[in-house]
């Protein structure tokens, strides 16, 4: 066995992943109106990124303040790890009536869906890590998309004197503050839609107060 510590060998990635990686190399700058955002959420068996697993991914895409219902994403994943105590939150049972796919297939579909677009999630780091763990388990790299955390975004929209940096706003609190109906809360797709709505509401506030610096918002 040969060791090559410094030069990364070209791994034999599945086609979808290679395509995904390639799409970031020749990325063109575009206006915000033409930028596709993907708000997503995951339902998991728990909060331990090593031990817990993603049960379902939901996502909606938005472009120019419009969500296209037909371009939404909803997926349920077959997992061996199952924790009865979180069922009461997300309602996903081990043997439900929903059609479930294998984890790798789920990754493939999700990656094809998000492309190189900007991701939005609430408390994004958790969802981001969960997805990354999933990718790693299948020998793939981390997500390369830029992403926006609506929790952080919301704090920015508040006037400086109200910015209590210690406080983390939950999705429920934001729904209340921003008057977003909590339909299908705790389903991946429902939360993704709520997140998208929250994103739209906060950005329009920021635009109005001229406080929106896109570059500043985006993390990669």
């Amino acid at each position, binding site marked *: 066995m040969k060791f090559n510590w410094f030069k990364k060998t070209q791994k034999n990635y599945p086609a979808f992943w290679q395509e995904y990686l390639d799409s970031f190399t020749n990325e063109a700058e575009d206006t915000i109106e033409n930028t596709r955002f993907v708000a997503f959420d995951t339902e998991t068996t728990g909060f331990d990124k090593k031990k817990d697993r993603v049960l379902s991914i*939901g996502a*909606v895409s938005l472009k120019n*303040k*419009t*969500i*296209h*219902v*037909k371009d*939404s994403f*909803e*997926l*349920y994943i077959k997992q061996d790890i199952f924790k009865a105590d979180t069922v009461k939150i997300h309602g996903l049972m081990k043997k439900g009536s*929903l*059609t479930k796919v294998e984890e790798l297939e789920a990754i493939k579909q999700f990656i094809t869906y998000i492309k190189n677009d900007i991701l939005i999630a609430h408390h994004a780091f958790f969802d981001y890590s969960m997805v990354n763990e999933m990718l790693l388990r299948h020998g793939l790299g981390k997500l390369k998309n830029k992403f926006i955390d609506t929790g952080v975004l919301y704090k920015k929209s508040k006037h400086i004197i109200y910015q209590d940096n210690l406080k983390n706003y939950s999705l429920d609190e934001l729904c209340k503050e921003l008057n977003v*109906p909590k*339909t*299908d809360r705790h*389903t991946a*797709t*429902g939360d993704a*839609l709520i997140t998208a*709505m929250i994103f*739209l*509401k906060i950005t*329009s506030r920021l635009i*109005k107060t001229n406080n929106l610096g896109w570059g500043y918002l985006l993390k990669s």
Partner: protein
Amino acid sequence: MKNSIAERVSDFLKRFPPFNMLDTTSLLKIATQVDIIYLEKGDSLFNKDDAFHNHFYIVRDGAVNLYNINDNNKNVAGISDAGDIFGVRPLITQENYKLTATANEESIIYGVPIEIFKSVTDKNVKVHKYLITAFATNTYDPYTAEENGKIFVDYLPNTSQDIANFQTANYTKSPVSCQENATLQEAALKMCEHKIGCIIVTNDTKYPVGIVTNSDIKNKIATGRFPITTAVTNIMSSPIITDKKDITVANAQLQMIQHNISHLGITKDGTPNSRLIGILTHHDILVTLGNSPSVILKEIKRAKRNKTLRSARLKANTLLKSYLDQNIPISHIVKIISKINDAVNTRAIELAIKKMGQPPVAFSWLAIGSQGRKEQLLFTDQDNALIFDDVPEDKYETTQTYFLELARLVTKALNKIGFEYCEADMMASNTEWCKSVTQWQDQFKDWIFKPNEKAILLSSIFFDYTHIYGDKSLVDTLTNTIYESLDETNIFFKFLGKDALKSPPPLGFFKQFLVEQNGDRKDLFNIKSRALMPLIDAARLLTLNKQVKDVNSTYERFEKLSQLEPNNKELFDSCAYAFKALLKFRTKQGILNDNSGKFIELTTLTKEEKLKLKRCFKPISDIQESLKLRFDLKNVM
């Protein structure tokens, strides 16, 4: 792939027209293709003269203003809130937008792709009609929208209800008959006495041998071919076609068509060789089949008991319902139903006179209030009054007593028929409203020259009087006095004007309905006092002011005013139109809830009903503004 969002969109859409007219599969198909659009306050979805989009829109949350922008004017043509559709122009006609749609507040809009929508609703007539209505409502102001007349089109197709055909026919039992040896004159007298058009000739075993009808008399007697003293057997049509008593309506009709006759004898075993037990006329068939107004009127005229009147009036209600279902113009419906109401009143009075004996002097029975305006479509309160001819002072009391007693019988009968007693006792049986002509003249003069709140309240009821029965010249005398008196004063009009403005148009900000604030009617919309009365009051005031006589119904009053003042034609026409629409609305609600339709629970209304209702409110505020100027009411308020 499961699409929860599409399901939620569909859950929302299915609550509102036209989507509620679609089945679940179609709806989900549409929902899957919907765009969810976020609008910040002030964002425009489309502007006037923009090329049409591939979507039309429904408000999910918030509200969208539709502006009509001309030169520098920006008028709100409408506000769409949750569940309202707008931007339907591209669905109907592929033209650029005529209006500008701007978010009135932060809003979420669903964009429905037209192509998908059209493919799914291709053959759905209800949906199309709804969209045309919405289109007309959002695009035009009420004045011009009236032209297309489609606003009255219903969304529910007419269902056939011909079960009646297989019912057993209701024949007349114990029919009037005469013996073979009777003369034609005797038979004719008998027919007159019973107000019938035919008589059956029987032999001494009571078997029917023939029938004499009006046309037999016309053809054989009036032409001089036979003298009136001739025997009925010379005149009668014979043999008589007979059948059994359990004959169905459809069969009876067939028999009549086959033999080209309009009467069937009903005998014990169905043949002419058994005892006659009844007669089935074409008229009876029509009665069973329901409902032609002429049949009901005939039934009323022939009624011998209040019970019959009641059943006839109930049939009129069925008739009313089917008319509304068939979208017959409300003006036509109003005419027919008021004819029937008048006939019921007349017959009730005739029956009462029969009981009481002939009246001592001439009199006129007046309908007042809604019946006086000929707008009483449902059973509502009875309001009436009685004028009798002047009598010497010493006879006044006995004369009045007779008429009070007569009125008591009539009002009791009307109550039995279904017209509730008037709560305020505005009935001819009340001493105050049963007076001689001179006393009535004094009464009206008193109201006209010394107006106060009570006088105005009463005026609003008594000035809408219509002669129902008796000597009309008494009413004409009264009318002339009233108009002469009105010429001499102005203050009365100011009072009436002030009264007509007491209910402002029933929409608050953001087009929400003004509902009752307290009491057990809380949160109900009073369509009578808030929408109908302002128009009724305005019409009365203006016609009195213009000295228009004998036009009593509110929409006819507006139509008359529109002729008299061509420069205000649009205003008056829109009022007439709104009134008819509101009246129809109230009547439908009344039938639906089996009450007077006065209070409407807004939550039970569909979106399209609310839409229609709202459209009727603009003329109210327009006419009230006009009254303010015309009668200089600003200072009186």
